[in-house]
């Protein structure tokens, strides 16, 4: 198992390098000029000096290697310095955002909590709702509960987040003014009242994202349960005189969770992608919104770094899913 993980980690490195190269080459075609918003009164020779300072005129491979060095070497050093108080990284240039004139990672660190709170909580809520629904609809196949569950998850599949989010705003923020439609990031939770406010402003985005997760996962859970319910070991367990509760929740559930757990792991990066739209609707200033503004502002270092972080998440979650599958299912052995 350990050798498998090690091999997969080694294999992930060329994949990630290739992905970062693809993202870089795509961005390299960008027509925008990062100095376009500087005043026109800057004399051309000064402008040229600014271009040199940003390294814009050096060949593509130099810029790529520079970015790679900054991402894989300088930024981890900074992190180590920050964590244990050393100063390895003195005098090394970090990745600087053109738009904020500040290190990219400082801005990302500011934005991560919002995304994690909203998206992470939504994913958790979605999983919590989806699993019982899937179990019950499989156990009572073709009952009215199952039919309703199928229909609701079809709707969850079909209604895109940019419509369900807007609908939620119309119903629960405009017609019934229960929840705010805009996420207030400056809110500091210090007492009971501000906590309630935080919960209220998180409700709508979490609901929108959770609907998506629930729709997919509950279908998957149902299919996996149905697969297992017809196996011989279920009949054996019943013949031994076990209660239905034990049969269902101990024997069948444990076996059907194997593929579901991997799907949950695989869904984590895609939820970050879906969050781009949801964050835009509810004005949550998380990572997705940061990416959109960076794309609009032609802030290439920011876009490059963020897109690459998303790619790392995807590769990492794929790896986790594979490892989990091997750990949970004794029939699967990676030698």
């Amino acid at each position, binding site marked *: 198992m350990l050798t498998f993980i090690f091999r997969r980690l080694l294999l992930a490195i060329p994949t990630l390098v290739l992905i970062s190269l693809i993202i870089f080459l*795509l961005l390299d075609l960008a*027509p925008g000029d990062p100095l376009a918003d500087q005043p026109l009164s800057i004399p051309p020779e000064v402008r040229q000096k600014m271009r040199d300072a940003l390294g814009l005129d050096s060949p593509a491979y130099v810029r790529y290697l520079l970015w790679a060095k900054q991402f894989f070497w300088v930024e981890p050093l900074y992190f180590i310095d920050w964590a244990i108080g050393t100063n390895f990284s003195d005098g090394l240039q970090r990745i600087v955002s053109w738009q904020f004139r500040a290190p990219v990672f400082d801005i990302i660190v500011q934005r991560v909590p919002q995304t994690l709170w909203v998206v992470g909580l939504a994913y958790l809520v979605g999983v919590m709702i989806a699993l019982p629904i899937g179990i019950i609809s499989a156990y009572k196949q073709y009952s009215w509960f199952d039919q309703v569950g199928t229909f609701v998850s*079809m709707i969850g599949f*079909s*209604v895109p987040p*940019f419509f369900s989010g807007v609908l939620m705003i119309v119903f629960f923020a405009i017609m019934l003014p229960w929840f705010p439609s805009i996420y207030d990031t400056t809110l500091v939770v210090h007492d009971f009242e501000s906590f309630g406010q935080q919960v209220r402003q998180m409700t709508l985005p979490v609901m929108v994202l959770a609907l998506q997760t629930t729709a997919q996962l509950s279908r998957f859970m149902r299919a996996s349960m149905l697969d297992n319910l017809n196996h011989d070991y279920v009949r054996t367990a019943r013949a031994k005189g076990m209660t239905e509760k034990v049969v269902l929740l101990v024997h069948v559930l444990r076996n059907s969770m194997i593929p579901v757990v991997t799907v949950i792991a695989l869904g984590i*990066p895609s939820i970050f*992608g879906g969050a781009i739209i949801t964050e835009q609707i509810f004005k949550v200033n998380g990572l997705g919104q940061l990416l959109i503004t960076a794309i609009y502002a032609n802030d290439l270092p920011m876009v490059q770094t963020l*897109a690459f972080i*998303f790619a790392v998440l995807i590769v990492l979650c794929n790896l986790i899913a594979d490892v989990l599958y091997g750990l949970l299912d004794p029939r699967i052995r990676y030698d």
Partner: protein
Amino acid sequence: MTDAPVLVPATGPDTSGRSQWWDVWDQFKTHKGALFGAAVFLFIVLAVTLGPLVWTLEPTFIDIRARNSGPTLVHPFGTDQLGRDILARMMAGGQVSIAVGLTAMLISVLLGTLIGVTSGYFRRLDNVLMGLTNLFLALPLLPLLLVMVMLFRETLARSFGPEMGTFILIVSAIGVTSWMQTARIVRGEVLALKEREFVLAARSIGTPPRRMILRHVLPNVLSPIMVSATLGIATAIITESALSFLGLGFPPDFPTWGRLLFDAVDYLQQYPERVFWPGLAISLTVLSVNYIGDGLRDALDPRIRGR
């Protein structure tokens, strides 16, 4: 051992003049949701294509005095902030959205089938092509789509005109980023097919690979391709609407459902009903297409058929 071949009279209905597609249709008919979905999808397609012949108001005609009007007899869905008729805009937008969905699906299915069949059939190419597929699966697609649209919009708009340029860009961007699932499914099916006797028989009489693929392999992988094609329409429509919703789709005077929704969000406080129509159209189309895909999956599976 007397293995004299017993001539079994053909059981079942007489197959003369009755292709297998009738069986598929018979099975498809029993799936209520799929039938209903097909009817709804047909209705939407007819409404957006033939609708403008009946409802002759121009979607770009500005009647500034009738702006922001609610549903009336003259404007059944009301008008927008410039007094353009929303019903006409919905039909024009639907044409674009559905055209984008169909074209992007075609590109993605063609690419997926090509890569899937090649990688399943030719063992030497398998590693490279599947590596490529896995690489694409690991790419953060929505961010890359946004970047692609942002980067190439100007260039393509200059050479093909703003509308056609954006159409080509969005369709190819969606197609290029959504072929991976089809490729994987098709490759799996082809790998399984290669072990079957009829393929061995065809190869032993010296069928060249090209005819092998076209005559023996492709017809047998048609059903998963058709199912993923149907579902591909739904994802393509949603992706296009998402791009338009983020403001990176078609130009503002060129309506699509996603764009109409995006424009309506600005007036959410005053006219919340305006977001309803485009959103409903997108959701209904996607829902009906998903149901059709569901029914097709059952109908094309011969193990389920006839049950």
